[in-house]
């Protein structure tokens, strides 16, 4: 995951209840199609308006698992570094309403919890998605464990070549 931010999030910075970042997105047909393709899910409900018209949804809709990069884009927007120092361990995803093309979605990233168990440090993000009417359309509780920055860490130089730190 890209470490392009400038501020490193430390374990101590993860305070339950703290809103870390938020970001808004205008949902386009490409966002939905690319997300489904990224998961190798080729159901045309996510890409073909003619096909989708004949389903009980009636139009193209975002898949349940849509992430829009999950927590990373809001972190990067806020100039925060974090990503490869964690491993995803469990999750609870809920969809309250479908997300359609043209929806304006605001994703909020909140620290839900942090704890230590069997010598490992765990923390949970609460990622809430609201639509243009302020309705909660999606919620994701994502628990990861903290592994620290791996070594060697690979970065890219301006020519796109790998640089090993």
């Amino acid at each position, binding site marked *: 995951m*890209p470490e392009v931010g400038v501020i490193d999030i430390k374990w101590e910075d993860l305070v339950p209840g703290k809103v870390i970042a938020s970001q808004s997105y205008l949902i386009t047909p490409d966002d939905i199609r690319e997300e489904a393709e990224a*998961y190798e899910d080729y159901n045309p409900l996510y890409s073909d308006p003619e096909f989708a018209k004949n389903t009980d949804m009636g139009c193209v809709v975002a898949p349940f*698992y849509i992430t829009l990069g999950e927590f990373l*884009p809001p972190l990067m927007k806020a100039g925060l570094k974090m990503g490869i120092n964690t491993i995803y361990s*469990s999750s*609870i*995803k*809920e969809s309250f309403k479908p997300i359609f093309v043209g929806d304006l979605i605001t994703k909020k990233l909140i620290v839900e919890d942090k704890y230590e168990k069997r010598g490992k440090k765990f923390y949970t993000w609460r990622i809430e998605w609201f639509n243009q009417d302020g309705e909660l359309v999606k919620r994701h509780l994502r628990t990861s464990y903290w592994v620290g920055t*791996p070594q060697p860490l690979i970065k890219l130089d301006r020519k796109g070549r790998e640089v090993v730190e």
Partner: protein
Amino acid sequence: MSEKTKTKYQVTVGDESAKLKTVTFDEINIGDELPQYTKWITSQSGMRFGRTYKDVFSGHINPKVSEGQFGVRSMPVQGAVIEAGVTPLIINWLRSAKPWLYGGRQESKFIQIVVPGDTLIYHGKVLDKIIEKDKKYVMVDVFAENQKGEKVMVGTVRVAF
């Protein structure tokens, strides 16, 4: 009842006015098993998903970082890729995305890594049916196993009617 017709070339055509057939709450029974869903994991699986968040060098796509991040060089795919296989499992079973997008819930735990070359088979079995006020829910036990029969992800799913 579907009204089939034949063209002048004796080609059979389905009934264009027939309604969609989707699985309803009443048609589901506790203990029902869902049709399995298979997902093949290749090195492209992690890379495709990584592009959604502009991943250029994580352990999911770079063997050197993989060793530092996961302790293996085999570039495990992202957990999100594994849990996403539950969506086609549910939609294919219900023949509809509605009960999944209006009130669906998925709880997942990752048991072990999944690497390029693995074949995942997703299973589901109906655990319970619940009626609460004007909502009807079906709870489903789900898991994904690899080609060796090892469970890689377990979870519980709720669909809402």
